Structures are given as structure tokens and as C-alpha cells.
């Protein structure tokens, strides 16, 4: 462990803002990417399912 305490870890010397904002942004972007991927996956399936059901009932 390079830090003595949790608060020191959060402060990162005097660079806490920079480090955590960089990581925060990166995390948000990566999470968005994952969410977007999974939701398109789900959406495609739903669209296709609806389409198949419709073509069956006709």
C-alpha cells in the first residue's frame, strides 16, 4: 500500500482532483459503453421478437 490512510488515498497528495476526475470520466465512459452494448443487444432481440410474432399471427 502506497498510502497511509483512506483519506490520503483519496487526496493523492495534492493531485486527488486530477486523478479521480480522470478515473471518474473514464469509468463513466466505459460504463456507458457497456450499457450501450447490452441495451442494443436487448433492443435488437425485442424488435426481432416482435417482428416474428407479428409475422406469425398474420
Amino acid at each position, binding site marked *: *500500500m*502506497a*498510502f497511509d490512510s483512506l483519506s490520503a*488515498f483519496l487526496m*493523492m*497528495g*495534492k*493531485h*486527488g482532483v*486530477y*486523478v479521480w*476526475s*480522470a*478515473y471518474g*470520466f*473514464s469509468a463513466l*465512459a*466505459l460504463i*456507458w*459503453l*457497456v450499457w*450501450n*452494448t*447490452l441495451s*442494443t*443487444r*436487448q*433492443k*435488437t*432481440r425485442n*424488435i*426481432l*421478437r416482435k*417482428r*416474428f410474432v407479428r409475422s406469425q399471427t398474420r
Partner: protein
Amino acid sequence: MRWVWFHKLASPKWFYSWSNFWALPVFCFGCLCLAIGLVWGLAFAPEDYQQGNSFRIIYIHVPVAMLAQSCYLALGVASFVFLVWQMKMAPIFIKAMAPIGAVMALIALVSGAIWGKPTWGTWWVWDARLTSVLVLFFLYMGIIALQSALDDLVLANKAAAVISVVGLINLPIIKYSVVLLETLHQGPTFTLTKKPEMPPEMWLPLLCAVIGLYSFVAGLVLWRMQSEILMREHRSSWVKQEVMENGL
């Protein structure tokens, strides 16, 4: 036959079931590796004697910057394959890859800019590396914009492939040309020929994060390609079976 796997890859159905098996493990392995690398780098790696703790941004910055470039390379190669051999999977790959690459370039830009403030004293400088990543981001956005502007599938496939191949040829030229502008950014850490100059407890977590992010992106690409395959092959019976019978 040595080329059987290649021909199999070209078959959407085979690819779908193959990726169905691999996507989740690859993605999970990527998440795990990335998490280990980041926690290790953030909490355990020693402080840099020059930059202090701000250097810890490296553990996200470098993997992401590497991915931004690798994604484009993959995109360009796939486009070339498509234009020459008309391989059906290639445009699906391009469609899946472009947004990921764009996000990677964006994170590289943002994390780099944030890192620049404490080390260089400014968010942005017009330096070779930075500028070429910015251009890379524009290239990605161009491909995405083109694909979304063209609602004709055949045209969109060809168009994205053409523009990424041209980009592939041009990327080295762009890189070379911006190098002629002055530079602030440091050189590569990992090279094949030399040992890294950093101590191992600094670069090991970095390596871990890099491998993790590659794997993470691979998983995502497989998933994205799956959605695209389903949409494009919707008239074939296996898609119908897949969608109607398998839950997720």
C-alpha cells in the same frame, strides 16, 4: 485445412454461436484484469519521484491510448478485407468497432488533458501525440457520422470500409507530419527491444491493465457484432430460432 477457421469466421451463424460462447468469459477476464491493474496502480504502486501521485493516471491513460490506435488498425484491416474479398463479417465488425474506438480516443484525450494540467501546467498543447489522437477521434467520428447518415445498408457498408481504408493509408502520414511540429509528450514505455525504464512495480500493473482493457474491448466487440448479425440476418431461420427460444 489451415484456412477452415477463417472461412468459418465468415459465416455469421457459426460466428454467432462461437462468440456466444466466448464473449462473456473474455469480457469477465478483461474486467478482472483491468480491475486488478487499476487497483494495483492506484493504491499500491510507488509514487513517482517527479510527478507525484498524478502519474497514477497512466494506468488508465496508456491502455486507453493504445486501444484507440489498435482499434483503428483493426478497423482498417477489416475494411481492406471487405473491399478485397467481400467478406460478410467485415462491415459488421466495422460497425461494432467504430464507436468503441471513438470512446477510447475520447478517454485518451480527456485523461491526457487532465494529466497535462498538473504536469505541463495546461490542459492542452499542440503536440504531435495529442494532435494525432485528436485527428484519430475525428476519423472515428467521421466513420460513425457516415454510417448513420447512410440508411442504405449496402452503401453504408461500402462507405465505411472505403473511408477507413483511406484512413489506414493516411494514418502514418498524419502521424509523421505532426511529429514535425514540436513535442512535449514522452516516448514509449513498452518496446519489444528494450526493457522498460520504470521499475517493475510500476509497469506490471500497467501491463495488467493493458491486457485487461484489450480483453474487455474484445468482449464488447463480440456482443456488438452479435446484435448486428441478428439484425442483418433476420430473415434466416436460425435467427428466428435463436431469438424466440433463447432468453437473453
